[in-house]
């Protein structure tokens, strides 16, 4: 006989693999500052730019070195970078000062062309998964990241449709994922965290971060990552 008063424990045990990952929290916090704060941070940026321009004009004869070489507007944005770095992640700062655009691509080739150097084509996608969508975000006409979403073409035996997302994002620098297992990816370091049903793997090549996340096994995530690196050789 099952006790309904134990439902909380029963449900939590059944969802032992459903946890707030550090990556999810990080993504959420980055999104918070991308979406609503565009206008909020544009205003001080423009104000700062205006002030710098006025100061620049006022002191031009006395202090020509006070102006940045690339213009006062950039100076405003540089100042903004210091103001708006919620996570200390350098790659997010640029988004905060500009409007974020999103794209939907019809093919991997189109996404590669838009993303440019560093785009890797994944192989070794687990059997049964099909490419469902290719989306991107960025500033102005620059695509900063591309996400390929794969879903199972048919529901699995447990009735759930599983997803794998592969994201490639331009970053200013790489970092380590603490608490993740380090794995060798054909000479590059990958950071993997996995449970029975889900896995997430991150690695860096040059100035791009790659994420393989979804309802897949750790070995499958590693195989996908290796296939991406292999595609560069």
């Amino acid at each position, binding site marked *: *006989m*099952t*006790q*309904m*008063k*134990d*439902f*909380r424990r*029963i*449900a*939590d*045990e*059944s*969802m032992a*693999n*459903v*946890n*707030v990952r550090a990556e*999810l*929290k990080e*993504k*959420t*916090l980055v*999104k*918070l500052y991308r*979406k*609503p704060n565009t206008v909020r941070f544009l205003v001080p940026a423009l104000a700062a730019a205006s002030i710098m321009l006025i100061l620049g004009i006022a002191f031009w004869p006395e202090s020509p070195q006070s102006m940045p070489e690339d213009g006062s507007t950039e100076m405003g944005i540089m100042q903004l970078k210091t103001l*708006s770095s*919620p996570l200390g992640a350098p790659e997010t700062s640029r988004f905060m000062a500009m409007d974020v655009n999103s794209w939907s691509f019809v093919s991997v080739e189109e996404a590669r062309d838009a993303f440019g150097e560093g785009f890797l084509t994944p192989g070794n996608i687990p059997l049964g998964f099909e490419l469902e969508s290719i989306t991107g975000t960025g500033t102005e006409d620059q695509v900063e990241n591309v996400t390929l979403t794969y879903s199972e073409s*048919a*529901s699995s035996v*447990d*009735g*759930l*449709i599983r*997803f794998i*997302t592969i994201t490639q994002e331009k970053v200013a620098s790489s970092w380590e994922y603490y608490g993740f297992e380090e794995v060798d990816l054909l000479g590059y370091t990958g950071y993997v965290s996995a449970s029975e*049903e*889900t896995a997430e793997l991150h690695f860096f090549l040059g100035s791009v971060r790659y994420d393989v996340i*979804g*309802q897949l096994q750790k070995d499958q995530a590693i195989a996908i990552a290796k296939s991406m690196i292999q595609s560069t050789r």
Partner: protein
Amino acid sequence: MFFLQTTNSSKAHLEKEINRLIDLYGQDVLRTAYMYLKDLQKAEDVFQEVFIRVFRKYETFQGRSSEKSWIIRITINLCKDVLRSAWLKRALLTDKPVEEELPQEGESLESRVAQDAEDKLLFSEVMNLKTEFKDVILLYYYHGYDTKEISEILKVKEGTVRSRLHRARQILKERLEGRVDFGDADERF
């Protein structure tokens, strides 16, 4: 627990508050979303949207209810929005109830394995309830709210909450062939 510093809207304060809210309620938000959507990816999407909305509406929160109630209400409403979307409806139509764990007749219910199977079956049946019944079961048994609090979260009369709870229990009893004990709940409602 209530928001105590709603007048301080500085960026640093908001950052700290959102971090605190995610740490405190993130797991409940994610798992609640998962129980509605039965899909981790979608649950994570809802998770992100919940905290984006909390962030946007932070200054308008009046502290009339607990912050957890407020966040759980946003979560439930977002899940219902997702469930209403045509795309997910199509995906969910392919869902099959999990039945393989049902203990066979004659199998000992005293054994741990059978008990685990019954627990999983209960969880599965709750996941498969219609939304209006799932609402009250999750809020009552998972989140531990009383019927008055549930009525405030769902914006329905307390009597409606009680009748939905009663009906939800009946459904679960039928589907589990009586192998679920609600304690004294039937007497109370």
